[in-house]
Each structure stands twice: as structure tokens, then as C-alpha cells.
């Protein structure tokens, strides 16, 4: 059952002769001496493919849908050659007890050496009964599989932040993975869904270098989430020039002006959409004429309108934005100042009259 990289290459029709040539070429291109050729071959023959267990909690499968559209590398290469995707209840052939048996098998055989990928998140209310996998709450499965894993990849905004199922009032108490599993390294790959190439690249990086990619303070890989969409947006010149679309059907929109005034969240969203783009680099939302909705940011579903630059604030009970609140505060204080000034003026004139009459006496 433990399949090495050598075995995968053989399975794909590569002869041993070609394999050894490949090893010598690799050594040569890395500037290593002939003595390293057998060592590379040995490593390829003995290093097992890393097993990945892909669990699905409360989710919409948009992460999987995105993943299978990866072009560089192709999703099939990632799944069939690079990793050993041993469990993924959405796309695996096995079902029922057979499927669940694989989990136990991998967990014991590769204890501490498998990667756990989580799509979706566990709901904690009602004893976790809002998401049942194989007759048991998902949160139990998550905790059980996470116990012996090497690292966790939190696919998408659900696993990373909570996403739509965690929107207020969050009746099922859908909870992001890092708040349930606290003792394992977690790589957050947020987005609803995340970009396909970002997903496969994170896996590729972990397999190639045998370590986690460098993460930012919120646990996202810096190489994809280090810059805002705004920083690399092709409409940025229109932003700096002050050229904005003011309505979806105005001239500015037709000319492809900046969508900032239409509530584009590019300036507050960390993701690689404007560089990597979607569907094999074809396009991304802003290129298609719609503003970014900030789907890879924490709590994007509860931050007011997608089409407002100054977004609404709900903390005050009523929906209002900062300008409305500020305007009301300035109005109230302004009225108070005017009223106070009027009373002060009356008092002052009376006092002066009093002083004058005292002097007259």
C-alpha cells in the first residue's frame, strides 16, 4: 500500500532505464557529482508519497470544484502522482464502511506523517449534530483524524474563518478549524473558493520542500496572501487617476474604470486573484466588471454591503455607515454648541447689563 515516487513513475510507463537517466540528469542540473545519482534514485525509490486525507464538514464543495480545475499543476497530477489522496468522500470511489476504514488504515500506517486537508468546518451547537459524517458528528471525525496528522490545510473561507454558515447569528455555531484544533500547524488557504492554482501550489510546495510554506500572522501562505488584490489590479491606474465607475451601466463601467466607488473590496482583500487569476488565468471578478467581494477575508459576509465603499456598521442596532453616524454626531454636537452659545450670549449680555447698572448706581 505504501507507494513510492519510483513506483508511481513506473506505473505511468517510465522504464527503469529512463528513471536512472532522469536521476543522473537531476544530479547534473543541480551541479552534484556522479556519486549523488544513486542517492537520488534511492530517495525516489524509498520516499513514500505523502498521504492526504481530505475531510468535508459544513461546506458547499466549491473548494473541490475549484481544485479540480487547477491547470498548473493539473489537478490529476497533484492527486494521482504527487500526493496519495487516500480519502476524499466527495470524489472517492469507495463509500460507506469501506471509505471510513481507509481513514483508520492511513491513520495507523502513517501516524504523524499524513496531511489533513479540511474543507468546510465543524458546527458545535446541538452536540455537532448539524453535520453528520458516517453517523457521527463531523467534529468528532475532525478531532480524531487531526490527532496524528503532520499538518492541517484549511481549505477555503469555511475552514479558515467560518464563512457563510458562521454568519450572524450562526445558529449551528459553525467554527473554523483553528479554533477546534489548537495543537497542529494549520495553513489557511482562504477564499470562497480559493484559487485552484493556489491550492495545488500549496500542496506542491509542501511536497517539494517537505516543509510548510512561510505563513503570515493570520496563518496564510505569504506567497499568495502577502499582497492585496488592489496592489496588483490592472485597473489601478484608473484608481490613481481618480477615474471611477459610478454605476453599473455608466460610461466609466464600460471603459473599465476602477470599481472602488461600487464597493470593490480589492483594497482590503489579501489574495492572488489579480496575479494568478481564475480558470487557467482567463479572468477574475474585477476583469469581468464586478468588484471584489473580499471572499478571502475574515467575516466578509458580515461586513455590510458588497456594493458600498464605506460599509455599514450593525453594532449599533441599526444599519448605518461611518459617515451617517459621524454626520449625526456632528449635527447633534453642532446643534448643542449653537444652543449653548445662544444661552451663553443671553447670560453674558445680562451680566454686562448687571455690571453696567452696578456702575451707574
Amino acid at each position, binding site marked *: 500500500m505504501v507507494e513510492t515516487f519510483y513506483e508511481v513513475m513506473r506505473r505511468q510507463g517510465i522504464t527503469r532505464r529512463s528513471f536512472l537517466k532522469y536521476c543522473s540528469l537531476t544530479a547534473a542540473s543541480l551541479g552534484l557529482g556522479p556519486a549523488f545519482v544513486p542517492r537520488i534514485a534511492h530517495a525516489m525509490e524509498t520516499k513514500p508519497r505523502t498521504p492526504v486525507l481530505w475531510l468535508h464538514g459544513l461546506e458547499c464543495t466549491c473548494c473541490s470544484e475549484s481544485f479540480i480545475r487547477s491547470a498548473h499543476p493539473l489537478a490529476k497530477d497533484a492527486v494521482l502522482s504527487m500526493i496519495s489522496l487516500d480519502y476524499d468522500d466527495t470524489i472517492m470511489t469507495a463509500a460507506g464502511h469501506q471509505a471510513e476504514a481507509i481513514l483508520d488504515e492511513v491513520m495507523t500506517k502513517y501516524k504523524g506523517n499524513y496531511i489533513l486537508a479540511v474543507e468546510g468546518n465543524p458546527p458545535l451547537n446541538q452536540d455537532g449534530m448539524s453535520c453528520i459524517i458516517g453517523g457521527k458528528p463531523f467534529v468528532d471525525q475532525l478531532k480524531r483524524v487531526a490527532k496524528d496528522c503532520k499538518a492541517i490545510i484549511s481549505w477555503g473561507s469555511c475552514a479558515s474563518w467560518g464563512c457563510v454558515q458562521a454568519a450572524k447569528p450562526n445558529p449551528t455555531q459553525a467554527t473554523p478549524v483553528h479554533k477546534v484544533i489548537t495543537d497542529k500547524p494549520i495553513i489557511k488557504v482562504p477564499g470562497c473558493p480559493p484559487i485552484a492554482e493556489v491550492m495545488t501550489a500549496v500542496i506542491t510546495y509542501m511536497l517539494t520542500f517537505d516543509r510548510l510554506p512561510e505563513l*503570515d*500572522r*493570520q496563518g496564510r501562505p*505569504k506567497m499568495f496572501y*502577502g*499582497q*492585496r488584490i488592489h*496592489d496588483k489590479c490592472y485597473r489601478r*491606474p*484608473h*484608481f*490613481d*487617476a*481618480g*477615474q*471611477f*465607475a*459610478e454605476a453599473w451601466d455608466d460610461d*466609466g463601467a464600460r471603459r473599465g*474604470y476602477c470599481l*472602488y*466607488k461600487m464597493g470593490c*473590496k480589492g*483594497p*482590503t*482583500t*489579501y489574495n492572488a486573484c489579480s496575479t494568478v487569476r481564475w480558470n487557467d488565468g482567463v479572468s477574475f471578478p474585477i476583469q469581468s466588471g464586478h468588484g471584489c467581494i*473580499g471572499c478571502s*477575508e*475574515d*467575516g*466578509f459576509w458580515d*461586513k455590510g454591503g458588497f456594493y458600498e*465603499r*464605506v*460599509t455599514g*456598521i450593525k453594532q449599533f442596532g441599526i444599519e448605518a*455607515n*461611518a*459617515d451617517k*453616524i*459621524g*454626520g449625526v*454626531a*456632528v449635527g447633534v*454636537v*453642532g446643534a448643542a*454648541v449653537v444652543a*449653548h*452659545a445662544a*444661552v*451663553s450670549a443671553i*447670560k*453674558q449680555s445680562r451680566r454686562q447689563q448687571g455690571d453696567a447698572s452696578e456702575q451707574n448706581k
Partner: protein
Amino acid sequence: MLSAQDMQEAVAHGRQVRAVYVYEAPLRLWHWVNALAITVLAMTGYFIGSPPPSQPGEASASFLFGYIRFAHFAAGYVLLAGFIGRVYWAFVGNEHSRQLFKLPVFDSAWWKEAAFELRWYLFLERHPKKYVGHNPLAQFTMFLLFFLPLLFMIVTGFALYGEGAQAGSWASMLFTSWVVPMFGQSQDVHTWHHLGMWAIVVFVMVHVYAAIREDIMSRQSMVSTMLSGWRMFKDDKP
């Protein structure tokens, strides 16, 4: 009635105090530079949230929004430099230069004075008192409605600036790295920064009104003091 400290000054001078040097030159300079910076920041900041109408022509022919943002960031740097200088001056300046940073909440006499001032503003007291520096109510307002919001605006402002300046910039390392995760995401920082602007606008309204009103109705100079540095008293009564 003079406060205890002012009485000491009066005794030291050996005569009735008619004028006291309160605001030293660096402090006055800071006040006006800061006022100008805040004016620029509030105006450009509002336009950053609600940009002016779209510019015609080619994108390369215009840099309007870039200039608005540049003015905002430049004024932000001026504000920060001024603020650092102001904190420094609190250490080397006179007694009054420290008042902005203090809130003597455990001083019962201070609270009594503050209550008196509140009554004066509610027209419940007939005669105002004399104060050399800020009266306690003014000090309270300065601390809560000006010093803290200003600090908040500097921290959130440079956190947002650090996002554009990119990871690795000083603003990003010093502010963005912890402020944005603390708020959850960048949009929240924008919203709070926007609210902070309105808080400071409210402060400016109250501040200007109170200064002019006190200048007319109280027993000491106000507006001219921030120009000349001298607090003049209008009468010899204690």
C-alpha cells in the same frame, strides 16, 4: 479662586498674577501645525472614503486620487512627527506641557473642580474660576476626546498606510502586522479609522467653541494664549 499650584506661582511672584507664561513656543507651534495637519487629513480622508466625481480623459493624464492620497499620507507623517515632538516636549517642557497626557482620576479635588466646571457650563454657576492651564473639565475632554482618538488615528492610519507600503515597510512591521489581525480584517480598520475622523471633527467643534466662549465669558485669555503663550487675567479678584 486660584488652584493650589497657581497660588504658589502667585506667591512666588509676590504680587497679584495678571499674566502667566503657559504655552512655550514649541508647544504653540505644534498646536497650529497639528491643527493644519488634522484639517488636511480630515478633508482628504473624507475624499478617500467618498472620492470626487470621475476624471475624464486618459488615466495617464490625471493623478487626482493619487494626489489626494499623497496629501493624506504626507499630512499623516507631519502629524506623527509632531506627535513624537509633542511627547518629547512633555518631558522637557514646563508643567502645562504634561497636562494633555494625564488624567488624574484618583484626585478627588480634581473631580470636584471638574464638577464645578460642568456646572459652569450648565449655567448653574454665576462666576467662573481662574485657571492657568486647562481647567479639569477641559483636561478630561482633551484626554478622552483628543489625545486618545489622535493616538488611535495614528495607529490605525499607519496600519492602513503599511498595507499600501507593502510588507517589510516600517509601517507594516510596526503597525499593520498586529493592527489588522486584531481588528480581523482591513475593512474593519478602514471603518474604525473613518469613525475616528468624525470623533476628531466633533472634538474640534467643541474645542473651538469652548475656547472662544471662554475667551469671552471667563476671566482669562484663551485664543490669544495659544498665539503668544501668555495667559492674561481680566481681573485682580482671586
